[in-house]
C-alpha cells in the first residue's frame, strides 16, 4: 500500500513538472503580455523597461528555472495585472467556487435522488417517464446555454411580464459574510439569491446523472429478499423505501458524488463565466484572455494537485470498500 502511494505521488510530481514546462513554454511562445499591458504608443525603451521589471528579457529556460525554484517554495510569481501573488489571488477566489460547487451538489442530490428513486419504484408511470426524458435533456443541453436561458427567464422575462415576480440577480456574489475568516455568500439572504441561478445551472448535469444512477440502483435493489422481508414484516412503505432501499442506494451515489465533485470544479469555469461569479474559474478565463501567465500556471498547478489527490483518495477508497481491487498489481 505504502509503495503504491509513494509511486502515485512520484508519478504526480512528474506530471506536474511536464505540465508546467509545457504550459510555460506554450504560453511564452504565443503572446507578449507587455503588448497587452501598456499603451500601443509607448516607446521601445519603456517596453524594455517593463520587460526587464517582469523578468521577461531573460532566456526561456532561465525564466522556467527561476519559476520552478520559486514554485518549490510556494511562490508562483505575481499576477502581471493585479500585482498580487498569483497563489494568493487564486486562494482568495477559492471559497466562491467551493460554495457554488457545494450548493449545486446539495441541489443535485436533494432533487435527483428522490426523483430517481421514484422513477425506480414506478417505472411505468407518466411521472417516471417525464423524469427520465428530462434527464436526457439535462445531459444533452449545453450547460452554458441553460445558464443563459435561466438568466433570460428569471432575471429578464418573468419579472418584466409578471409584476410581483422577484427579479433574480444574474451576476456577482451579492452580500458576503465572513465566516472563520472566509467570505461566504451562503449565509446571507442576498448572497443566497445570487447563488441560486448559478447553482441550479451547475446542478443540472449532475442531477441528471444522479437520477439515472438512483433509478438503476433502485430497480436492482427492489427485488432483493431483504426488501421483500421488510414488506412481509408489515413495515410501512415509507420505512421500507426510506430506510432499507435508500441505504443501499447511497453506496454508489456517494462514490459518484465524490468523483463528480472534481468534475464540478472544472465545470464551474463555465458557470462562473456565465454568471460573472468571482470564483477561481472566472479568474482562469480572465487570466487566459489577458495572458496573465503566472495566474494560469499557478491555477494549473493547483488543479493538478487537486485532481491527483482526489483520484488517489477515490482509488484508496475503492480498495477499502472492495477488497478485490488490488492496488499493487495496477501500479506495476
Amino acid at each position, binding site marked *: 500500500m505504502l509503495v503504491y502511494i509513494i509511486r502515485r505521488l512520484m*508519478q504526480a510530481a512528474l*506530471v506536474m513538472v511536464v505540465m508546467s514546462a*509545457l*504550459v510555460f513554454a*506554450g*504560453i511564452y*511562445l*504565443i*503572446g507578449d503580455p507587455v503588448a497587452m499591458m501598456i499603451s500601443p504608443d509607448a516607446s521601445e525603451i519603456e517596453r524594455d523597461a517593463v520587460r526587464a521589471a517582469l523578468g521577461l528579457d531573460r532566456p526561456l529556460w532561465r525564466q522556467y528555472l527561476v519559476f520552478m525554484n520559486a514554485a518549490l517554495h510556494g511562490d508562483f510569481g505575481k499576477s502581471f495585472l493585479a500585482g498580487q501573488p498569483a497563489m494568493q489571488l487564486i486562494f482568495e477566489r477559492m471559497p466562491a467556487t467551493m460554495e457554488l460547487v457545494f450548493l449545486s451538489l446539495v441541489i443535485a442530490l436533494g432533487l435527483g435522488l428522490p426523483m430517481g428513486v421514484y422513477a425506480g419504484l414506478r417505472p411505468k408511470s407518466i411521472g417516471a417517464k417525464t423524469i427520465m426524458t428530462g434527464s*436526457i*435533456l439535462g*445531459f*444533452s*443541453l*449545453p*450547460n*452554458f*446555454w441553460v445558464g*443563459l*436561458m435561466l*438568466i*433570460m427567464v428569471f*432575471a*429578464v*422575462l418573468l419579472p*418584466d411580464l409578471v409584476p410581483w415576480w422577484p427579479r433574480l440577480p*444574474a451576476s456577482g456574489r451579492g452580500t458576503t459574510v465572513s465566516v472563520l475568516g472566509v467570505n461566504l455568500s451562503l449565509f446571507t439572504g442576498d448572497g443566497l439569491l445570487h447563488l441560486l441561478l448559478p447553482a441550479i445551472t451547475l446542478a443540472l448535469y449532475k442531477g441528471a446523472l444522479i437520477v439515472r444512477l438512483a433509478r438503476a440502483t433502485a430497480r436492482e435493489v427492489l427485488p432483493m429478499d431483504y426488501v421483500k422481508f421488510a414488506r412481509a414484516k408489515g413495515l410501512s412503505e415509507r420505512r421500507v423505501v426510506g430506510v432499507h432501499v435508500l441505504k443501499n442506494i447511497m453506496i454508489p451515489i456517494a462514490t459518484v458524488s465524490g468523483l463528480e465533485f*472534481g*468534475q464540478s470544479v*472544472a*465545470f464551474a*469555469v*463555465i458557470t462562473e*463565466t*456565465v454568471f460573472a461569479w468571482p470564483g477561481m474559474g472566472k479568474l*482562469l*478565463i480572465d487570466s*487566459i*484572455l489577458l495572458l496573465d501567465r503566472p495566474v*494560469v500556471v499557478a491555477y*494549473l498547478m493547483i*488543479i*493538478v494537485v487537486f*485532481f*491527483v489527490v482526489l*483520484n488517489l483518495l477515490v482509488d484508496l477508497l475503492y480498495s477499502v470498500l472492495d477488497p478485490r481491487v488490488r492496488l499493487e498489481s495496477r501500479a*506495476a
Partner: protein
Amino acid sequence: MSETALDPARAPVAARPQTPFQRIVSNFCEDRLAVFGLVLVLAALFVAIFAPLISPQDPFDIGALDLLDAKSPPGTVSGDGKITYWLGTDGQARDMMSAIFYGMRLSLFVGFTSVIAALGIGIVVGLVAAYAGGRIDALLMRVVDIMLSFPAILVALILLSVLGKGIDKVLIALILVQWAYFARAARAAALVERNKEYVEAAHCLALPAGRIVFRHMLPNCLPSLIVIATITLARAIALEATLSFLGVGVPVTQPSLGMLISNGFEFLMSGSYWISFFPGIALAIAIIGINLAGDHLRDVLNPRNLR
C-alpha cells in the same frame, strides 16, 4: 444472428437471409425515440451540408448587411423588403437563420473531424497496447490514465490558452482530449479478441503482426468503438461550443453555434432573447439527436443482445 440465416430449410422461399447490416437497421428502427433522434441528426446534417444553398443570406458577406436591421425580432421583414428574418437578426444585422445554418456546418465539421481523428489515434494506440502487452502496454495505458484523470474541459481550455484561437487549434485540442477514451476502449475490446481462435489461426498462418491486428482484430473491435464514437461526437460538439463561448475557441469571423450564443449574451439583458435562444436550440437538436440515436445503437450493436 437470426434463425433464418442459419437454417435455410425453415426460411420462407422468397426471403433472402438477412445480412448483419440489415439486421442492425431493422433492430434500430424498432425504437421510435431512436428513429426520432436519427431524424434530428439527419436534419442537422442536411442543414450543415447545404448551408450555402438554403441560407437566405450569406452571413460572412459583411457588405450585404444593413445595420438598420440590427437586432430585429423574429419575423421582421428586412429594410429592403427582400427577405424575412424568421429567427430575427443579431447585433450586426446578420440573419440568425443563415448564421445558424453556417454555424451548424462548422460545429458538425469540428465534431466529426475531431472524433474521426481521435478514433484513428485511439485505435492504433489501443490495439498496439493490447497486442504488444508488457511494458509498451503499461506505458501507453499509464499515459491514457493520466489523460483521463483530468476533466476534458479543463485540459482543452489550458491547451487552447497555449495554442491560441482558430479552427485548426480547436481541432487539435479536441483530438488530444478525446483519443484516450478510444484507446482505452480499443484496448479492452482487443484484449478479448486476442485470445480467440481466429487470431490463433492467423498466427499459425504466420501472418505479419500488422495484418493480424488491423485486418483481423480491428473489424471485430469496431462495433463497440462506433457506439463510443457517437457519444463522443455529442460531447465534442458541446465541448467546442463551450470553448467558443468562453472565448478560446473559433475566431469571431467564423461563428460556430457556441460563438453565436456567446454573441447574444450581451443582448440578453435588454430582452433580445432570440440571438442566444435559437442557436442554442439548434445545438440542442444536434446533441439530443446524436444522444438518442447513440443510446439505442449501443443496444443494437451489443453482441450480447444478438440472440
